[in-house]
């Protein structure tokens, strides 16, 4: 086995393994930027994975499944939005409840779909791009869902930093009082951001059941929702850095699995720990107010807003 092709394949695997986390993390980034922490990512992903699989299994059309998964994720996130924005409930409690709800409901409704195969997204090589040396192998020999994420990263960056609605989102997340005074609809902005988060978490879940594997198994996210939450902090609430974080995480996993396959005895637990160590570091550093401001942590994150309080 030559080394160079294997390195390329490992990098390609990094993109693949990072994609479900990337979807969910970009969504969570939007919610958190508007000031709403949603710990329900794992639950929304599971519902998305199941609904996407159910729809695809019934219709034979993975794109329809993807659409349904996004809608399902959005619906679940609506619960969180209503509880935390309209009723101003504690965001941590509501988010945790959402994860428990999503895990339970997907497990219950998914029972008839266990052990049932379905056609998901096939690997699709992009013409021209897929033939490029290096870049082609790494980025353009995947399934359509991976390609869907590429435009999302610059789009989110542009939206957030270069448009009026993006400015509003950041204002609502930083200082809802000022945003409100400027005439920005705080509740509406937060609703839209939380729903976008649900949509993307649903797609991230569907990636697992429609692209990565073509099956439904209870609890198949196996903690990826929580990793996405960590990646948002790791990427300091910036779309580009969040994407890098997701790929880094996927890369560490892809690399350690391939080193094992080659029989290289590495302490894999240590390797798998690196993204978390960095996340903890960011969290520690972010406790200092000046640093917190500089790295972009939304100041109003986790605080319900009510006019005149």
């Amino acid at each position: 086995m030559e080394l160079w092709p294997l390195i390329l394949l490992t990098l390609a695997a990094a993109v693949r393994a990072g994609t479900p986390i990337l979807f969910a993390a970009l969504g969570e980034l939007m919610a958190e930027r508007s000031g709403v922490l949603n710990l329900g990512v794992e639950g929304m992903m599971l519902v998305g994975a199941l609904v996407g699989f159910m729809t695809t299994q019934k219709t034979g059309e993975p794109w329809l499944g993807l659409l349904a998964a996004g809608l399902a994720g959005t619906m679940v996130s609506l619960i969180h939005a209503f509880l935390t924005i309209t009723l101003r409930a504690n965001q941590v409690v509501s988010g945790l409840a959402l994860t428990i709800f999503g895990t339970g409901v997907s497990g219950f409704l998914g029972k008839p779909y266990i052990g049932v195969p379905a056609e998901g997204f096939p690997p699709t090589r992009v013409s021209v791009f897929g033939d490029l040396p290096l870049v082609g192998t790494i980025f353009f020999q995947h399934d359509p869902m991976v390609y869907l994420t590429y435009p999302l990263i610059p789009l989110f960056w542009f939206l957030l930093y270069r448009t009026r609605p993006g400015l509003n989102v950041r204002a609502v997340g930083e200082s809802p009082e000022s945003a409100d005074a400027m005439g920005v609809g705080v509740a509406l902005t937060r609703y839209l951001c939380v729903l976008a988060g649900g949509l993307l978490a649903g797609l991230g879940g569907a990636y697992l059941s429609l692209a990565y594997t073509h099956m439904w198994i209870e609890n198949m996210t196996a903690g990826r929702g929580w990793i996405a939450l960590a990646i948002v902090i790791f990427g300091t609430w910036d779309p580009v850095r969040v994407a890098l974080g997701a790929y880094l995480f996927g890369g560490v996993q892809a690399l350690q699995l391939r080193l094992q396959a080659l029989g290289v005895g590495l302490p894999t637990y240590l390797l798998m720990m690196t993204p978390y160590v960095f996340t903890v570091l960011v969290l520690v550093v972010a406790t200092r107010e000046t640093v917190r401001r500089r790295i972009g942590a939304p100041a109003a994150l986790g605080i319900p807003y009510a006019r005149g309080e």
Partner: protein
Amino acid sequence: MKGKWLATVIAGLLALGLGVTARSQEPMKVGFVYVGPVGDYGWTYAHDQGRKSLEKALPGVKTTYVESVAEGADAERVITELARTGHKVIFTTSYGYMDTTIKVAEQFSNVVFLHCSGYKRRENVGTYFGRMYQASYLSGLVAGKMTRKNLIGYVAPIPIPEVIRITNAFALGARETNPQVKVHVVWTNAWYDPATETEAANGLLDIGADVIATQSDSPAPVQAAEKRGAYGVGYNSDASKFAPKGHLVSAVWDWGPYYVETIKAVKAGTWKSEDVWWPIGTGIVGLAPYGPAVPSSVKTLVEKRKEDLIQGRFDVFWGPIKDQSGKIRIARGQKATDEELLQMNWFVEGIVGTIPK
């Protein structure tokens, strides 16, 4: 006055009679405690299939199951609750329930407890398991015959003696039919993570494996192999649906026969605490039907070896068996004892990979 007294007696007797008939018709309650969700399509799923066939085979039995019960305090609460609510037999189906099962059993001497895969017993606690390594060895024979590149990838979950033993058995089988074979092992460090299992299989395919075998809970590695035109060997449940072309064979659990026999014995009053470790050919472990790619010559060979195992003419861990460093671990003509099998912490020769410490 006298009439009223008589009426009371008659009513009382009637009530008693009704009570007695009601009691004899009352179904026997059997409880199951699962470590994972019944929808894992793996370990817990297989136990639950066994529970269902028990209900079907013995109509007088009513079963209850509790899924995703964490080992430790949670398990103690669940097992105690089942014992308290009239379950006469309770199956605890994870190694980690061992001490908890013994602890609860001490308080409920009239309840029979059966713990899967452990070794601690008492008067009302029996242990049970299947010799899965035999089925795994047989699936290894097929894999060894089918590989062209002499490189088999193996996706392993968590490094404990049971998993190591079954991996070794697979490698022994593969190398019996093809001494050139190397079995590359990748640990996912989880019982349960289809996406990581898929990526582990992809990694093994990337380094050139043309057969992927697995011991993890989901059929994801077999499906990943199918997607890339390689062969797959399943585990736990029949993986053929996930790889209609490339599925070779699966080593599978079938708990039904054991559950039925045990409940019959308890009902008849003949049950006594023992260690049940059923070999292949008696239920609990077996092979799923072969895939279309397996030629009949290979099937004949495997069936012959299976018969040898059943008749006791042969055993998987029969020396000489060397470890990865080439040191003889089981001497020529010797058979590994059950104790050695239960404590196995080394890989056989021909496996590429390390056991995390």
